[in-house]
C-alpha cells in the first residue's frame, strides 16, 4: 500500500522514531489544537466557567517533550502548566476529562473543585499544577528524589515559563534537585511573554539556558516549534537523567500566539511578530515535514484529523449537558479523617 511504498523511498526517520510514532505525535498535536478550538467555541457560548488559556503555537514543544518520556502506569512523571495541554494528553489525560474540568462538571477529575488542567493522575504519571508559579519545581524535585531513593529508573519532567523563572520557588526547587542529582528534566518555555511582560523586563540574560549555569546543570536551547528537535533534545535529557546523571535543562524558544487568556486581546504584541511566528506554526511545519519526507501521506493525516474531530465531538456531546457537582459534595475530602467538614449551623435550618 502507498504508505509503505512511499515510506521505503523516504529518508530515514530521525531520533529513533518509527512511522507509527510520527503519526501518533501528529495525532496528539491535532488533538491538542482541535480540543482547544472546541473549548474556545464552548467559551464563546459561556459554557466554560472562568478563563480559557490557549497553547496555540506551543502545542509542538508540549507534545514532543512529553513524548520523550516512558508512558504507562508507574513509569515517568510530569507536571504540566496551563499551556501544556498537549503534554497532559500525551501522558494519558483524556479530552473528556479536560472538557469536564473546564465546565466544572461533577464527573470531572477534580469533581468541580479545580480549574482546567489543574488535575493529575499519580498512576498515569502527571501532577496538576497550582496557580502559584514555580511551586511545582520543588514538588517535582521531591517526586524525583523519591525515584532516586527507591532506585526506580524513572524520570520526572517539569515545565517552567520564562516569567516563572523569576520566582523563589523555581530557584529553591531547581537548586535542591541539582544538589540531590534528582532524575529531573526541566523544560524552560521561552514564549516571549509573561502575561504582558517581555523577557527584557523579566531577567537580564538572553536565554533561559543561561540560568542553568547557576545550578551546575547542563542546558540546551532548541527551536520550540520544531517538533522533532524538541523531541530529540528532551529524549537526550531524559535518557541522561535516567542514567543517574542528574538534572537537565531544555529551553524551547517559541511564541505565545494568543493573549494570556481569551479575555486578553494582546494589543501589546507586535503584529509583525505574530505574522512571523504564524509562519512557524509547529503543526504546519511538522505536517509538511511528514509529507515532504514521505513519512506520511496526505490521506493518513486527513484520517487522523477526522478521527480527532469525531473523538472531540463525542467527548463534547458526552459531557456538555452533565450536571455540576451537588452542593454538599463541597464538604468532603479536606482530610482523610474526618471525612467531611462541618456543615455550618445556619444551613438547612428552616429559616
Amino acid at each position: 500500500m502507498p504508505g509503505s511504498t512511499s515510506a521505503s523511498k523516504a529518508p530515514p526517520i530521525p531520533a529513533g522514531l518509527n512511522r507509527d510514532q510520527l503519526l501518533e505525535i501528529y495525532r496528539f498535536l491535532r488533538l491538542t489544537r482541535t480540543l482547544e478550538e472546541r473549548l474556545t467555541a464552548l467559551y464563546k457560548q459561556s459554557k466554560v466557567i472562568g478563563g480559557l488559556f490557549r497553547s496555540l503555537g506551543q502545542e509542538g514543544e508540549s507534545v514532543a517533550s512529553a513524548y520523550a518520556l516512558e508512558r504507562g502506569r508507574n513509569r515517568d512523571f510530569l507536571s504540566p502548566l496551563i499551556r501544556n495541554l498537549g503534554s497532559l494528553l500525551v501522558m494519558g489525560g483524556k479530552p473528556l476529562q479536560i472538557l469536564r474540568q473546564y465546565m466544572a462538571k461533577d464527573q470531572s477529575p477534580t469533581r468541580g473543585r479545580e480549574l482546567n488542567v489543574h488535575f493529575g493522575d499519580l498512576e498515569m504519571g502527571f501532577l496538576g499544577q497550582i496557580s502559584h508559579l514555580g511551586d511545582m519545581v520543588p514538588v517535582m524535585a521531591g517526586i524525583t528524589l523519591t525515584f532516586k531513593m527507591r532506585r526506580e529508573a524513572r524520570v520526572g519532567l517539569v515545565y517552567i515559563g520564562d516569567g516563572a523563572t523569576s520566582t523563589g520557588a523555581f530557584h529553591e526547587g531547581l537548586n535542591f534537585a541539582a544538589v540531590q542529582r534528582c532524575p529531573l528534566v526541566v523544560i524552560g518555555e521561552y514564549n516571549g511573554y509573561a502575561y504582558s511582560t517581555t523577557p527584557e523586563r523579566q531577567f537580564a540574560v538572553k536565554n533561559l539556558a543561561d540560568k542553568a549555569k547557576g545550578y551546575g546543570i547542563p542546558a540546551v536551547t532548541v527551536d520550540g516549534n520544531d517538533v522533532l528537535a524538541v523531541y530529540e533534545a528532551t529524549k537526550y535529557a531524559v535518557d541522561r537523567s535516567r542514567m543517574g546523571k542528574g538534572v537537565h535543562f531544555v529551553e524551547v524558544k517559541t511564541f505565545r500566539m494568543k493573549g494570556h487568556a481569551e479575555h486578553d486581546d494582546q494589543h501589546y504584541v507586535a503584529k509583525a511578530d505574530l505574522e512571523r511566528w504564524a509562519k512557524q506554526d509547529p503543526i504546519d511545519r511538522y505536517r509538511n515535514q511528514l509529507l515532504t519526507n514521505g513519512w506520511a501521506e496526505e490521506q493518513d493525516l486527513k484520517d487522523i484529523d477526522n478521527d480527532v474531530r469525531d473523538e472531540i465531538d463525542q467527548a463534547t456531546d458526552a459531557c456538555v449537558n452533565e450536571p455540576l457537582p451537588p452542593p454538599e459534595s463541597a464538604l468532603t475530602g479536606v482530610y482523610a479523617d474526618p471525612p467531611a467538614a462541618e456543615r455550618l449551623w445556619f444551613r438547612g435550618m428552616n429559616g
Partner: protein
Amino acid sequence: MAEVTFLEGLRQGLREEMERDERVFILGEDVGAYGGAFKVTEGFQKQFGESRVIDTPISEAAIVGAAAGAAHLGMRPVAEMQFIDFISCAYDMLTNYVATARYRAGLPTPMVVRGPCGGYVRGGPFHSQNPEAAFFHTPGLKIVYPATVRDAKGLIKSAIRDDDPVLYLEHKWLYRRIKAQIPEGEEILTPIGSARIAREGKDLSIVTYGATVWKSLEAAEVLEKEGLSVEILDLRTLLPLDDEAILKTVKKTNKVLIVHEDTRTGGLAGEITARINEKAFEWLDGPIMRVTAHDVPLPYAPTLEDFVLPQTDDIVTAARWLAGY
C-alpha cells in the same frame, strides 16, 4: 457628578496621590504597559512614566522587599499583587521584615500592598482568597478593606499617606458591580481605624466588612419587612479594629451577628467575638453568632462555591434565629 465604579474610585485615589506626591510610585506585575490584570492602573505609565509605574518580574517577595527598601528612604511605594492570593509568596517579607521594621530598628516603612481578593466570581481556590486572617496576627501592619466606592478612594489615599505599612484589600466582586457618585473636587480621606455604620437599626447588629456588607444590606431589607430592625457595621479597617464602634452597636442592640466571607476557623470573627465577650459580656442578650464560609478551600464549580460561601439567605436565617433567641 458622575457615577463611578468601585474600581474607578480606587483608580482616582491612586492617581490623585501620585499627582500630589512624587514620592509615590507603583510596582507590580503587568501594572505598566498592560495597566494591571484588572486595569486598575490603566494609563498610569503613560501619565507618570516608566520609573513611577514599574513592571516587575514575577517575584512577590522581591516586590514587597524592594518596596520596603524604598520606603525606608522616604518613598511611598504602592505594590500590587496581581491577585492577592500570591501575597503568600511574600508572607515572610511582609510579616517578618516589613511589619517589624519600625519596632525593631526604628525604620519608617510607609508602603501599601494592594490587590484583588475575594470570591463569588468562580475563581477557584487560588484566585478567590481572603488573606486578612493570615496578616491580622501581625503587629506593625495595618489592614484596610473598603466596601464602598467612597472608601475605595478614601482608604487608598489614607493608606498611601499613612506612616506605616498598610495592606489594602479590594474585593474583585465589587470592582464593577458597585457604583456611586463621588464629588469631583472633594479630598476624600477615610480615616484608618474607624468603622462605619452602613445601616442604622435597633434589634440586632451585624458586624461585617467587604463584599458581605452588601449581602448583609440585602438581608436587612428582607428582615425589615418582617419587622426586624438590623444595624450593620462596616469595619473598613481590620487592623487595628475599631473596638469603640463595635462596642457601641453591641450595647445598642445587645445581639451580634458577625459575618465574613472568609472561612470560620481562625477567621476574624473569633477575635471580634472575644473582644465583645471581654468588654460587653453583661450587655449580651444572646450568643455572638458567626456566618462565614465553610472550612474548606474554595472550590470552583458554581454549585460548590455558592454552597461554601455565605449567602444573603444565610444571613437572613441566622439573624432570624438570633432575634428569636
